[in-house]
């Protein structure tokens, strides 16, 4: 694996090299381990709260919009595909790449908007964070996920903007890949949270 060296700073390593940049893909994967544990903490709190409650959902509390949210989820899942599609185009066609990234961000924004509408309806029906553990866990988990989607949408818009302004050089694609991985994380997390929160 490692061949016999020639000695200190000698021989063929004569020319000075500028410091190497780190690999954003490695960075984002490490970050996602932390994120996973964060959501695991929230899910644990949800499971503990549910187990401690006599009935779930409690009597007299509104039911969650299972079907409407399933419909909404389709937008988010579709964005996972468009993100992949964007990466397919990245080397040969940067204009297409930029378009697909914008579509991905748009689908994420639609998901967020529909979530917002659902929240307003639920609040009108009287499901508040302060009205009990049911509402509290719902708004906390779904809200935490929505904030992650919002942050990821902002990042994707930045990527699209960068790609529009100038041609992305090869090293930048590692950063783009890192953004895509983060996007797939927030997309892939959603079905799990949906099943836990909406279908229980």
């Amino acid at each position, binding site marked *: 694996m490692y061949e016999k060296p*020639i000695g200190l*700073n000698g021989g063929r*390593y004569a020319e000075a090299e500028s410091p190497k940049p780190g*690999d954003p893909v490695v960075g984002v994967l490490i970050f996602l381990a*932390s994120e996973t544990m964060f959501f695991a903490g929230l899910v644990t709190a949800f499971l503990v709260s549910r187990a401690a409650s006599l009935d779930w959902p409690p009597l007299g509390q509104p039911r969650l919009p299972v079907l409407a949210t399933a419909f909404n989820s389709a937008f988010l899942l579709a964005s996972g595909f468009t993100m992949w599609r964007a990466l397919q185009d990245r080397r040969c066609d940067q204009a297409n790449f930029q378009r697909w990234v914008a579509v991905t961000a748009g689908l994420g924004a639609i998901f967020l908007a529909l979530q917002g509408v659902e929240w307003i309806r639920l609040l009108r029906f009287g499901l508040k964070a*302060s009205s009990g*553990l049911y509402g*509290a866990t719902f708004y*906390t988990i779904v809200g935490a996920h929505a904030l992650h989607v919002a942050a990821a949408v902002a990042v994707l818009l930045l990527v699209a903007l960068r790609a529009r302004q100038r041609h992305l050089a090869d090293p930048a694609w590692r950063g783009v890949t890192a953004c895509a991985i983060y996007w797939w994380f927030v997309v892939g997390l959603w079905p799990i949270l949906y099943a836990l929160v909406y279908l229980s």
Partner: protein
Amino acid sequence: MAQVAVAHAAEHELGFWRKYVFATDHKVIAKQYLWAALLMALIGGLMAAMFRWQLAWPDASVPGWGPMGPQDYMVMVTMHGTIMVFFVAMPILLGAFGNLVIPLMIGAGDMAFPRLNMASFWVFLVGCVVLLASLVVPGGASPAGWTGYPPLSDKVEFTGSFWGINLWILGLALEFVGFLLGGINFLTTVVTLRTRGMTMWRLPLIVWQEIAAVAIFLLSVGPLVAGAIMLLLDRVAGTAFFLPHRGGDPLLWQHLFWFFGHPEVYVIALPGFGIMQEILPVFARKPTFGYRTIIWCTVVACFLSLIVWAHHMYVSGIDPRLATPFSIATIAISIPFAIMIFAMIATLWRGSISFETPMLFSLGGLVTFLLGGVTGIFLGSDTADIYLHDSYFVVAHFHYTLFPVVFFAGFAGIYYWYPKMFGKLMSETLGRVHFVLTFIFFNAAFIPLFMVGLAGGPRRIYSPMAYDLLKPLQPLHVVATVATIGLVLGQLPFIVNFVMSMLWGEKAAANPWHANTLEWTVDSPPPHGNFAHPPVVTRGPYDYSMPGAKDDWYPQTAPFSGQPQET
């Protein structure tokens, strides 16, 4: 040293702000973390002296504060704990030394993400400011303990502190974000930027310990952040996650807190060990005993650290059937640590030891940590803990584990790497005086607290005169307080040494300790970009006193055959 001149040229291109304030150079960020941590340590130490004054001479006026009632006392204890763990220990051991040594020791020019590194420090610094600001808001700072247990921390009605606790949560959250960014950087750097020949099995032990520490930090902090968000929502949005009378569960906080809180001990302890493991072979002129064994012990300890948290909850009303497995896991975790300690002692065995200041502090840390580790076995056993829990025995125990790794190892690291950081040598005489004062006063401050705890003295009581059964323990508190004040004053030689050496100290050579690791192959202080040419590593980091070698050290870049490199 022509290579240095090349790199120096690059350094001059940066302006003042980019070079010293919003710096991306890991060495500057390390110094920024060090300054911030030392300042916070001064604040945290003075707070300890003030609440200790109240314990020794109850209801006497505390110098610089005035009479200290129960509320002030609890605020002081809370802030002391929070500051020392999150705003002193972590910035010294991870922020300062992690940043300083990781790129240098692996032969990299800088961290993987220098701008993220800069953000890490500035987010941390804002966290410091937010935490200190909580001291002056109406209602006062948090008196809810550094663990912030609800229900006490949950509602303003229980403490009178609304913004105080909110800012406490916010300050901690910022600190977590800062070290999250730093941790990602540490790991990515070690994974991707190691120089040619620097295999994982040639990494200096401190680099292993730093990445192990940030790995468990990254894995354990998420649930606590989730808990902190829920606590904040309870306080400001009317939720009731942790309020039992509304269906919530205060034990949930304890689980989330200690799932992080126990690994946090190792987040601090492992880099502290790493510093000692770096220094012991240099001043014993011997290879580290059991290099790979130490690494495997670290890995095992990291895994176990994630499954022992409920030993903080034996008296919290958890199921006794749950207590037993946690008790077993806790006793088990002392095994890898015991092996590491034995390896460190074996490194010293028959070495040609010299007692320079870094070595003195390392040995002091080793000795005091032993007592901390041994007393931890009593507390880890659920049956013994039922008696000892929440007593001063616990206070003495965790100070005996944390003080050695934060301060003994921290000072050892400062004395050891000061020449590399600032390019000057520190005074040996002042260093030795500093060590003797610190060692004596630390032990004098905390041995009495073991006795108070064994006699049944509970912690978090603001006056030993509050209950008749505690009154006989008051003289022990006087001893502890006098020693604490001595401990604080004992830091004066250090401060003098630190400042004077920077101004008038003797200029340091590249390798004043004749050590092997890569940071000693470049100038003191190293130029921007560290290495003019990426070094090539040929051997492990601890080849001291090798048979057949001309000198008793063998730099990691020395060729296989032939003589070690001249410095």
